[in-house]
């Protein structure tokens, strides 16, 4: 399958996450408006950052004067999973120029990466993830605009019950990954157990993320090494 055909496949396959991204975009638009971000600034943020978790994290600290260091740290921490997502794609973007890979990494996205693992080998992963990313980018920017335009209707409304929507969407991605991944489940099961133990002993959230991923990777390395002995 050519890159272009795979890109179209990515576009067509993105329907489910197009809708959930749209929902988050509307919520982001409403939240940004409530935080005093001007419409064009919120739209610029959605188009250039293209990361729901990073953008929501930044709003938590959106006050005058803007605390650059705090925003930078929080954005990095919530985006650190991108490092792992991009590493997992290393072998799958073969056959394209380095320039093309570097440019197209701009729209790397969790659902595209996770669902690409379920695709047949003949699908061009870079084209697929890019098609998926274009659809989600369109959804994200359009829904941000919609959220900004309807924000006035939600003045004073309690939307706190939707705070947990992020983990719900992440759970759908985890299930797609768990059912579609051809790799062993041992590393991520170990990561989950480690995260639970670290949480119970009162470890800060950013350390839970880093340490449990490191422990999961260590489990994966041990498993691979013992499998080849």
């Amino acid at each position, binding site marked *: 399958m050519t890159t272009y055909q795979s890109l179209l496949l990515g576009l067509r396959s993105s329907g489910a996450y197009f*809708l959930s991204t749209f*929902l988050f975009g509307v919520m982001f638009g409403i939240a940004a408006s409530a935080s*005093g*971000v*001007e419409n064009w*600034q919120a739209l*610029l943020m959605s188009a*250039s*950052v293209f990361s729901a978790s990073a953008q929501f994290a*930044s709003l938590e600290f959106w006050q005058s004067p*803007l605390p650059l260091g705090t*925003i*930078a740290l929080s*954005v990095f921490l919530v985006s*650190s*999973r991108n*490092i*792992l997502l*991009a*590493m*997992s*794609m*290393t*072998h799958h973007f073969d056959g394209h120029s380095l320039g093309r890979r*570097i440019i197209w*990494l701009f729209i790397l996205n969790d659902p595209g*990466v996770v669902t690409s*693992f379920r695709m047949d080998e003949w699908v061009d992963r870079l084209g697929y993830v890019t098609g998926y990313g274009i659809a989600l980018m369109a959804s994200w920017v359009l829904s941000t605009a919609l959220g900004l335009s309807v924000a006035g209707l939600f003045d004073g409304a309690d939307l706190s*019950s*939707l705070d947990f*929507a*992020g*983990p*719900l*969407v*992440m*759970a*759908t*991605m*985890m*299930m797609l990954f768990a*059912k579609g*991944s051809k*790799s*062993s489940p041992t*590393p*991520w*099961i170990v*990561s*989950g157990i480690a*995260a639970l133990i670290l*949480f119970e002993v009162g470890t800060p*959230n950013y350390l*839970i*993320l880093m340490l*449990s991923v490191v422990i*999961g*990777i260590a489990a*994966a390395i041990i498993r*691979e090494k013992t499998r080849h002995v």
Partner: protein
Amino acid sequence: MYEQYPVLVTIAMMSAIVYATRLGGYLVGLKIRHIGWLRPILEAFPGCAFMAILVPAVRQGSPTEIIAILCVIGLMWKTDNVVMATVAGMAVLVLGETTLSGTGLG
């Protein structure tokens, strides 16, 4: 309203950081890709990251949030239907918080 220049700098910085995480991960992956046995380990990374974020979130969740996530997991397991699972989970969140808040459990 905020001054325009600091806002633009902040947005540019956020954009650069997010892109740097994507690019950085990919470039590190390129450096170590020649180690053949690393490939299955690299492909386990997204699952490790999702679990490391999800488990503490669920552990801190209210009864309604735990029911919502169990509902999502169950529907995804049975149907693979992302829209159905997400809508059902959100419905549990909204209806559950409204219902349980009166009982003090929500």
